[in-house]
């Protein structure tokens, strides 16, 4: 189990990262160097200085159920957690690792000893200084708890040294270590939870992040107030942030248009054109670490058959799906890794659309006459509803009768976590710009999510994943990941459909909303014009 990094998949959007732009002034779209088409109009990057104050209402279709960073993985929780707790390292809008609570870090020549120097002056929201002991406690707790995003690095010791240094020793080289530490689940909390029990602590957590919980209804809205002791001077600009729970993506758009909310967490691709035409709104489209996929429960009687899964892969016209549903905001997928992650290989055989091959595969399977099955999707997501209908029609061509079961997002998560599904449409999001993360949680049986709830287990792939963790960055490591991608595509435990963009929309008064590739936003950089 020394796996590595992982991240999680969540259903949809995940973590929230907030990145800050260090320099401060970006505007919504300004975030990445990527293709960000921003919006329409008004929000062009401004040169005015940020104005402090105000409350930002941020609408999402999901709400936090737990703020325990060590036991959570899905976006509803992750992107609340990352406003409260911060890790030693972080990553920016381009996915580049950057120092965060540690102002410097280095590793020994052999990659076994990692030294982190804490940034001077960092305090918890209580005003207490962050000490090396807090770091030791936090990482040890994560090692103990494990959770869905465990620390996979082969850590043998975590020690405090002096007043500002932490030394972590590994038993063998672990290339993705810095990337792993930059995940939200490696945030720093006060040693001993500040003396309270876990339940109490995670109701009103203490961290170093830009915001602290003000009030929270489990499964409903959560509001934050600014952390007065935040380590970045003058930030956060906002006095408060409210995560408002909204029923579905049509409601998100309606509430944004009517001015009830300032930012919406996700925009259905079909709505992008409408929002862009509204001068009082801005739309941000940035590259993401998200992969939209069909996931099979490989314990299901039909989908346990590799030929059946391959038949489905051949039967799906991914070009058509992307053309009909993305309105130019997504790319056709082939690999389990998105192109924004190093190691992505576009050249693998992804079993793309080929009806004859699909028929041959189903004929070779245990179900040559086809069968009836159920596709599980979360309701309230217009993209998934359309994708499901396409999949239903295309699988009918090879004799597979698909019933679509559309259930509420919270129930959907319960269902797939209990392996109570045959196949589903969902998305996976890497948490780090390293290929180890996504392949670990999707394909390593010890990755924390049982292959993203597919129960996929191919020992050869598992061995390659382990190899990828120890090889230093370079051609050899890249070759290993190419092999992993090809083998996964051939086994087809999941079928990547598309690589969507992160699409968010906001009132034009919202400035400096940095969107991270994992779908989170850095709200400490955000301010409101009056």
């Amino acid at each position: 189990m020394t796996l590595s990094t992982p991240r999680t998949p969540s259903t949809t959007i995940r973590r929230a990262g907030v990145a800050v732009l260090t320099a401060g002034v970006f505007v919504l779209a300004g975030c990445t160097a990527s293709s960000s088409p921003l919006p329409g109009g008004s929000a062009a990057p401004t040169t005015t200085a940020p104005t402090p104050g105000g409350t930002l209402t941020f609408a999402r279709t999901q709400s936090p159920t737990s703020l325990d960073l060590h036991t959570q993985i899905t976006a509803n929780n992750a992107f609340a957690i990352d406003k409260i707790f911060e890790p030693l390292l972080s990553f920016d809008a381009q996915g580049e690792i950057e120092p965060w609570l540690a102002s410097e870090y280095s590793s020994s020549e052999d990659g076994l000893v990692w030294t982190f120097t804490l940034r001077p002056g960092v305090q918890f929201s209580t005003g207490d200084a962050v000490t090396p002991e807090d770091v030791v406690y936090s990482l040890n707790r994560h090692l103990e708890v494990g959770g869905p995003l465990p620390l996979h690095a082969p850590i043998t010791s975590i020690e405090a040294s002096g007043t500002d240094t932490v030394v972590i020793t590994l038993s063998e080289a672990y290339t993705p270590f810095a990337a792993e530490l930059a995940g939200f689940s490696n945030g720093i909390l006060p040693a001993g939870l500040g003396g309270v029990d876990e339940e109490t602590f995670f109701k009103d957590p203490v961290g170093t992040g830009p915001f602290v919980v003000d009030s929270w209804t489990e499964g409903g809205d959560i509001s934050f107030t600014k952390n007065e002791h935040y380590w970045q001077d003058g930030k956060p600009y906002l006095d408060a942030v409210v995560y408002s729970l909204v029923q579905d993506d049509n409601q998100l758009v309606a509430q944004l248009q009517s001015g009830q909310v300032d930012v919406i967490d996700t925009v259905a691709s079909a709505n992008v054109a409408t929002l862009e035409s509204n001068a009082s709104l801005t739309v941000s489209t940035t590259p993401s670490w998200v992969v939209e996929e069909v996931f099979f429960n490989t314990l299901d009687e039909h989908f346990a058959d590799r030929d059946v899964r391959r038949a489905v892969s051949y039967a799906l016209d991914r070009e058509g799906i992307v053309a009909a549903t993305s309105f130019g905001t997504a790319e056709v997928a082939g690999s389990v890794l998105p192109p924004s992650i190093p190691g992505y290989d576009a050249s693998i055989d992804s079993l793309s659309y080929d009806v004859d091959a699909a028929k041959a595969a189903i004929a070779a399977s245990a179900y040559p006459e086809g069968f009836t099955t159920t596709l599980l999707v979360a309701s309230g997501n217009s993209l998934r509803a359309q994708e499901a209908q396409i999949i239903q029609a295309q699988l009918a061509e090879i004799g597979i009768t698909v019933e679509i079961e559309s259930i509420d997002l919270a129930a959907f998560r319960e269902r797939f976590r209990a392996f109570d599904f045959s196949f589903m449409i969902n998305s996976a999001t890497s948490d780090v710009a390293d290929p180890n993360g996504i392949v670990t949680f999707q394909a390593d049986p010890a990755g924390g999510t049982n292959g993203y709830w597919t129960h996929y287990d191919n020992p050869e792939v598992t061995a390659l994943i382990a190899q990828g963790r120890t090889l230093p960055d370079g051609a050899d490591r890249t070759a290993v990941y190419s092999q992993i991608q090809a083998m996964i595509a051939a086994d087809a435990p999941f079928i990547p459909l598309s690589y969507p963009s992160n699409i968010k929309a906001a009132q034009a008064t919202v400035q400096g909303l940095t969107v991270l590739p994992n779908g989170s936003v850095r709200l400490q950089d955000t301010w409101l014009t009056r």
Partner: protein
Amino acid sequence: MTAIGSTQQGPGAQAGTGAAGEVARGAGPLWRRMARTPAFVAGAVITATVVLAALLAPVLATHDPAAQNLLGGLQAPSGEHWLGTDQLGRDIYSRLLYAARTDLRIAGLAVIIPFIVGVLVGTTSGYVGGAYDWVVSRVVDTVVAFPFYVIVVAVVFAVGAGEQGISVALALVGWVTYARVLRATTAVHASSGWVAAARGGGLSHARILVRHILPNTLTQAIVLLMNDIVFVIVAVVTLSYLGLGVQPPTADWGTMISDGQAFVATKWWLSVIPGAAVVWTGIGLSLLGDGIGDVWRVE
């Protein structure tokens, strides 16, 4: 409907004992009354267009309503696709026709059971009275106390989305309306002199109920039925709009409206056309219901 109508007694028959004897009377005058009632005529014509569209969908449709063309989505109306195509490239005109089938079929099925149950329960409760009536009334009051959609959505969640869920949910809720009305009108008749006279003349309770009282109370139930169909169609469309109703790929107006919602600003017809179909059907059935009431109230 004519069959039912012809057995119907006008209120004038109440005074007599022998409503049944007059069954044959009505055809001529009834038809004339119908023709003279504008609401009835308009309602019948409008409803007929919808029913015909539904019945003849396979003939009238130009495309397979479920056939997708992923590269030909969201086309504007044209010679090839009279009302354009939806996001998945399906022909909207053809889907509209098949959706009429779906929605009328579900609505028809979903009102029949509540109608029968409600009429039975209401009539017996109004006639028998006593403890039975008390129990029925409390049950009815309880169901009525819940907001309609709250209880329907809850039932659909429990039973599962789809046609079956809709039918069960609407049946559980829908019968109370009939039961209330029938109970009240039956009670009035049951206490009247002609019923006592009929009993005195040796007629059984069953005969009095079925042959004499029911013909006098059923009119109201039928008027109610027409309005209820409208209501149920709207409910089916609403549930489908919420994703709890008709499941894909079956075409229905609610999912068509819902699917088109994202494009309201740019391709308004996607939602407006199925919406207009719902309105048209609703107007037709409402007028028909009113018309039937008018026709039978004339005397």
